[in-house]
C-alpha cells in the first residue's frame, strides 16, 4: 500500500449512475487485479474503497456506482483535480491459480475488477471467458472493452432486454477449469454454487480503514477470521463460509 496524491485525468458516466474515473499517479503498489484503492473526499470522514479496473504505467482506472453522497461528490470531480488515494489495497486475484480456461464472472458493479483480471489472464497466455451480468440493458457497461481485449464475452440481463436472459450462472460455458467472480452477494453465492471447479470470489463489505487496522470488515472463513480489506477482498472457494 502507498499513499499518494493522484490527478484526475477523466471522469465520465458509462450509464446512469456508473462512472469511470481515470487517475494519474503511482501504480507501483498494485500487485494483482482485484485490488482496490481508498479515496479521501473533502467533507467525508471515511475514505471510499473502489476496486481497480485497469492500470498501466502511471495511470489507473476505477469504475464506480454512485450509491450515496460520497460517490456523488466523486462523480463531480473533473480533469486536473487532485485526490488523496491509498493505492494497492487488498490481496486481489491470484492468477497463478487460474486455469487456461477460467470463467471471469462479474455482476453489475462487480464487473470492473474482472476487466483487469481478464487482461492479466490474457497476458499470461490464458483464454478466459467473460460473463457480464446486469439487471437490464441500460445498465450495461464495458461490453465493448471486454470484446476489444479479444476475450469471449457473454452478456446476460435479468430481464432479457439484452444478450442472454437470466443470470451469469446460466451462461457458464460447456468447458472451463476455474471460476473467478465479483458482484453482489446473491450473485457470488449463485456463482459459487454453479462452479464445478475451484475458484476465487471477491467480496464487498463496509470498511473503516481499508488496510487491516480496524477489524471493521471481518468475516469468518474455514481458514480462520479474515479481514475483507486486507486478507481479501478475494477469498478462495474452499475457504468460504456462507
Amino acid at each position, binding site marked *: 500500500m502507498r*499513499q499518494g496524491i493522484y490527478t484526475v485525468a477523466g471522469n465520465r458516466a458509462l450509464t446512469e449512475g456508473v462512472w469511470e474515473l481515470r487517475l494519474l499517479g503511482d501504480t507501483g503498489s498494485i500487485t494483482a487485479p482485484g485490488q482496490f484503492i481508498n479515496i479521501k473526499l473533502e467533507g467525508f470522514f471515511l475514505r471510499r474503497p473502489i476496486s481497480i479496473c485497469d492500470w498501466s504505467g502511471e495511470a489507473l482506472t476505477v469504475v464506480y456506482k454512485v450509491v450515496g453522497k460520497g460517490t456523488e461528490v466523486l462523480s463531480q470531480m473533473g480533469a486536473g483535480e487532485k485526490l488523496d488515494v491509498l493505492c494497492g489495497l487488498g490481496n486481489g486475484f491470484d492468477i497463478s491459480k487460474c486455469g487456461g480456461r477460467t470463467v471471469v464472472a462479474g455482476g453489475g458493479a462487480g464487473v470492473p475488477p474482472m476487466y483487469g483480471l481478464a487482461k492479466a489472464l490474457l497476458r499470461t497466455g490464458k483464454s478466459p471467458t467473460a460473463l457480464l451480468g446486469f439487471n437490464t440493458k441500460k445498465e450495461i457497461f464495458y461490453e465493448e472493452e471486454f470484446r476489444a481485449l479479444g476475450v469471449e464475452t457473454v452478456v446476460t440481463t435479468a430481464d432479457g432486454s439484452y444478450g442472454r436472459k437470466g443470470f451469469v450462472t446460466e451462461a457458464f460455458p460447456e468447458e472451463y477449469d476455474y471460476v473467478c467472480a465479483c458482484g453482489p452477494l446473491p450473485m457470488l453465492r449463485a456463482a459459487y454454487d454453479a462452479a464445478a471447479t475451484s475458484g476465487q470470489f471477491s467480496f464487498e463489505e463496509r470498511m473503516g480503514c481499508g488496510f487491516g487496522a480496524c477489524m471493521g470488515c471481518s468475516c469468518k472463513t474455514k481458514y480462520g477470521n479474515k479481514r475483507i480489506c486486507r486478507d481479501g477482498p478475494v477469498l478462495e472457494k474452499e475457504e468460504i463460509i456462507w
Partner: protein
Amino acid sequence: MVDLRVRLAGIELDNPVIPASGTFGYGYEFAELYDINCLGTFSFKGTTREARFGNPTPRIAECPAGMLNAVGLQNPGVEKVISEELPRLKEVFRKPVMANVSGFSVEEYAYTCSLLDQEEQVGWLEVNISCPNVHDGGMSFGTSPRAAAEVTRAVKAVTKKPVFMKLSPNVTDIAEIARACEEAGADGISLINTLLGMRIDLRAKRPLLANGTGGLSGGAVFPVAVRMVYQVYEAVGIPIIGMGGVSSAEDVLEMMLAGATAVEVGAANLVDPFVCRSIVEELPGAMEKYGIQDLKEIIGGGHHG
C-alpha cells in the same frame, strides 16, 4: 530545541503520541508504512481471555466528522496474543508497549492481566471498562464507581505494571468514576472511549450497524473528550491519557492543557495511516508557535483558579 519527552507512570516516553487501541492492530500493518519507533508507544488491540470474533457486519458507519464502530472486541484471545502477536510486535517495535485488556467479569480481567503482566515488553496495562459494543461486560463496569473500583483492585492485585483504567464517557459523572479508580489503586486514567450512537439506513429503515448501536469517534467527539479530561484532571492526582478525536499536533497540545500527560490518537489512523508520525513531526513546530519549550510543563496548563 524543544523537549517532547513526558513521563507516564514512571516510564519515559520520547513524545506523548500513542495510537489508540483498536486502530493500530499490533503495530505491524503500520510498521510496513513507517518506522513506528518514532511513536511514544502504542496501545495494542483490546485483548480478552477467550478468542472473540466480535459483532456481525456491518460494523462501521460514517457520520459527519466521525464514525461509528461496533467491532465488538475481535481478538485472538490472550494466549494467542502472547504466543503469536507479541513476538511479531517485538520485531517492529522496541519500546515498552501498552496492553489493552477487556473482559466480561472481574475474574476475567484479572486473569488476562496476570498473563500480560509476565510479558517483558508490556509497559502499562490499559484496562478497558468502557467498550460500548459488547453485552454483559465492557461498559457496564465503567458506568458504576463500585464496579470500576472492583476491577481496578482485582487487576492491581495481579500486576506490578502501572494500570490505566480506560473510562466510558457514557456516564453522568466521569469524575466520580475516575476518583473511584484512583482510590482503588489505579496508576492512571485513560479517557474517553467512544460515545454510544446510532445511524439508521433510510432505504432499509433499520439501524445501519448490525449491532444497532456503535461507538462514535473522530473529530466530532474531541470537545467532549477535552471537557472530560479537564474534569478528571481536577478530580484525581494520577496521570491521564487523553483521547477522543485527536488528529493534529495542536489537538495534542489542547488535550495536554486540559490535563493529559500523554495523548492517544484513534479514528484518525484509519483515515490517514501516517497521521501519528505526522503529529510527532509537527509537534516541535506547533510548540514553537505557542511558545512551549518543554511539553511536560503544559500538562494541566489550561486550568486557572
